[in-house]
C-alpha cells in the first residue's frame, strides 16, 4: 500500500519540487536584476538574439495567422451577413489572443530551445563550473540577461505580430474577398480598445518570462552529456509550450 502510494505520488512530488526550484531560480534572477554589475552588454546581446533574430519567423507566422483568420471568419460571418465584422474579429483575436500566444510559441521553439541547449552544453562541458571558479555568478551572467530579454522582447514582437496579422487580414478581406476597406477599418476602430492590446502585451511579457526561465532552468540543470542536452532542450520546449497555454487561460480569465 505504501509502495503504491509512493509510486502514484512520485510524479506530483517531482512536479512540486521542480516548481520550487524554478521559483528559487526566479527569485535569484530577480535579485540579480537590481544588484550590480548590471550586464547591459549581455542583456542587449540576448535582446538581439530573442527579439531581432526572431523577427522573420514572427512576421511570417503573424501574417498567415491574420490571413487564415480572415478567410475563416469571412465564410462563417457570411452565413448571417456579418462580413463587415471580419476586420474587428481579426484585430481583436490577434491583439487579445493569437498575437501573444503564436509569438510566444514561435520564440519558445527558436530561442527557448536554444537557451536550454546552450546552457546545457555549458553545463556538461564544465563552462558553468568555470564561471564559478572565476568568481562570476552564472545566474547573474547567463540567466538574468536571458530572462530580461524574454520579458522585454516578447511584448515588442507581439506588437509586430498583431500589426502584421491585421495587415494580413486586411489583404485577404479587402483585396481578395472584396470587403469594403472603409468598413473593415471602421469596425476595427469601433471594437478594439487600447485595453485589449495592453492586456495582450502583459500576457506576452509573462510568456516571455516563462519561456526564458524554463529554457534556462532546464539548461542550467542538465546532466548526462550530449543526450542530456537533447533531453533538456526537448523538455524545455514542451514544458514552456504547455505552461504558456495553461497560463494563457488563467491570465485571460483574470484580465478580460
Amino acid at each position: 500500500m505504501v509502495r503504491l502510494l509512493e509510486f502514484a505520488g512520485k510524479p506530483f512530488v517531482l512536479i512540486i519540487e521542480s516548481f520550487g526550484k524554478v521559483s528559487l531560480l526566479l527569485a535569484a534572477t530577480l535579485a540579480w536584476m537590481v544588484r550590480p554589475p548590471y550586464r547591459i552588454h549581455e542583456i542587449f546581446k540576448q535582446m538581439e538574439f530573442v527579439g531581432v533574430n526572431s523577427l522573420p519567423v514572427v512576421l511570417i507566422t503573424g501574417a498567415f495567422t491574420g490571413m487564415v483568420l480572415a478567410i475563416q471568419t469571412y465564410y462563417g460571418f457570411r452565413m448571417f451577413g456579418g462580413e463587415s465584422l471580419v476586420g474587428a474579429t481579426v484585430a481583436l483575436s490577434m491583439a487579445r489572443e493569437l498575437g501573444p500566444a503564436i509569438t510566444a510559441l514561435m520564440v519558445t521553439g527558436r530561442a527557448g530551445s536554444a537557451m536550454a541547449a546552450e546552457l546545457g552544453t555549458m553545463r556538461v562541458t564544465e563552462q558553468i563550473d568555470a564561471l564559478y571558479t572565476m568568481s562570476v555568478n552564472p545566474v547573474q551572467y547567463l540567466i538574468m540577461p536571458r530572462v530580461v530579454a524574454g520579458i522585454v522582447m516578447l511584448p515588442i514582437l507581439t506588437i509586430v505580430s498583431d500589426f502584421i496579422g491585421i495587415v494580413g487580414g486586411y489583404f485577404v478581406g479587402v483585396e481578395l474577398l472584396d470587403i469594403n476597406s472603409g468598413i473593415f477599418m471602421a469596425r476595427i476602430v469601433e471594437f478594439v480598445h487600447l485595453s485589449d492590446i495592453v492586456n495582450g502585451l502583459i500576457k506576452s511579457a509573462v510568456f516571455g518570462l516563462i519561456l526564458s526561465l524554463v529554457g534556462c532552468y532546464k539548461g542550467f540543470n542538465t546532466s548526462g552529456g550530449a543526450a542530456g542536452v537533447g533531453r533538456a532542450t526537448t523538455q524545455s520546449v514542451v514544458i514552456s509550450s504547455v505552461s504558456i497555454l495553461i497560463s494563457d487561460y488563467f491570465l485571460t480569465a483574470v484580465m478580460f
Partner: protein
Amino acid sequence: MKIQLSNVCKAFGDQVVLDNLDLTVEPHRITVIIGESGGGKSVLLKHIIGLIRPDSGSVYIDDVDISVLNDRQLNEVRKNFGMLFQEAALFDSMTVGENVAFPIREHTRLSKEEIDGIVEEKLRQVGLKKVTGKMPAELSGGMRKRVGLARALALNPKIILFDEPTTGLDPIRRDDIDRLIVKTQQLTGATCLVISHDIDSTFKIAHKVAMLYDGRIIEYGSPEKIKHSENPVVNNFIEGKSSSDQRLADYV
C-alpha cells in the same frame, strides 16, 4: 597558500565518495593526487574550490574554513585560484583572447590596452602565439588546454588546480603539458594541485603524491616513497594492475 582538508565526508545518495578524508597540501609545491577513475578525485578538487560543500568536515585555505563561507565570501577566496579543467572548459562563444581576458575584465578596472598586454603575456607564457582571434573550436586538444591554463593564470593565482591535465593527449602533448605545469609552478611559485591517473606524468612533475582510495588518502609522500610503498593497493595502481586482475591471477 596552504590547503588543508580535515575529516571531509561526502556522499551522493547511498554512495560515499569521501570518507573522513584528511589531506594537507604544502604551499609552493606540486602535489599530485592519484587514484582510480570515478574514485572521487574530481569531487575532492571541487571541494577545494568550493564548488561542492562537504556533508561534514572542513576545507581550509590558509586557515580559512571555506565550507562555512557564504557565496560572496567564497568568491573573494576563489580570486586566489586558477583552475584548468579536464577539457579546458573554454567559453565557446568567445575567442581565445576574450577567454583569457574574461577574468581580468570581471575583476579589474584595467584599460583594454592593458588587458590585451596581459592576454598576450599569458598566452606567450603557455607557448602560444597568434591565436587571440581564433575560436576554441579551431584549436587542438593540447592548444585548448594551454589556453585554459593561460586563462587560469590571468589573475596571477596563488593556487592552481589541474583536473586530469594530460587526459586525452598523445604522449608528446602530454610531455608538453607536464613541462608546462613544472615551468608554471617555478615561474609563479603557486601551490599546484594536480589530480591524475597518469603515473608517468605524476612521477615527472610531483613534489608530493597522495593516493586516494575508498574515499580516503591511503598514502602520502614524495614520489620515491610512493614508488616503494608497501601498500598493495598503491603498488597495484602504479603497476597498472586491477584488483580483478589479481583475483584472476590467483584463480589461474
